[in-house]
């Protein structure tokens, strides 16, 4: 096994590292930064954890978004095997995947129109 076979992986690691570092750097430069007292608290969102009873009300939006993420995220699992054998599958694979994505798209339109993606009430 020659090491050159791992070259693309090395390149991928380098590119992704550069991308991650660059985006953090750029956003820190571009975003306006205003320091306030609340932001320096251990919990930046401003809610100080306290010994409250567990019956606290919590916003359901977090869960809704998390669930929508999981469901769309896991569907991409089927895109990976396709990507690997994309060449061999050719047109047949492409058509199959388009059908698959159209079904996902229908789900997306549904979620969107029903307000599942709106953060504000």
């Amino acid at each position, binding site marked *: 096994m020659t090491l050159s076979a791992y070259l693309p992986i090395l390149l991928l690691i380098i590119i992704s590292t550069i991308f991650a570092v660059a985006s953090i750097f750029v956003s820190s430069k571009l975003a306006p930064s205003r320091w306030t007292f609340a932001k320096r608290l251990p919990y930046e969102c401003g809610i100080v954890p306290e010994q409250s009873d*567990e*019956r606290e009300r919590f916003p*359901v939006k977090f*869960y809704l978004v998390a*669930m929508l993420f*999981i*469901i769309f995220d896991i*569907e991409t*699992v*089927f895109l990976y095997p396709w990507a690997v054998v994309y060449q061999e599958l050719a047109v047949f694979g492409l058509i199959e995947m388009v059908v698959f994505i159209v079904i996902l798209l229908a789900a997306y339109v549904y979620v969107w129109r029903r307000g599942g993606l709106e953060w504000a009430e």
Partner: protein
Amino acid sequence: MTEVAPGYYLALAGLMFSIGVIGALVRRNAIVIFMFIELMLNAVNLMFVTFSRIRGSVDGQILVFFVLVVAAAEAVVGLAIILVIVRRRSSANVDDVSLLRW
């Protein structure tokens, strides 16, 4: 690198599945019960992959994809149902579910 005999993986999967069954039966919190059920599913996934290796076919690994997706769909629907109840009752304890006999 030393090879681990596939039998050990099967034993591990069996153990994980058993822990899942026992946990799901003895715990009372709906979300914890569901986590044990997920453990059972993942034990089966491990089993699929191991059998796939023993047999030298990739079929088993493909089956894992389907199990993963089904588990995610199930998790989303199940958690949504549990969430609605928790919001109304402030408890995810199945024993507090009192309108029906458990």
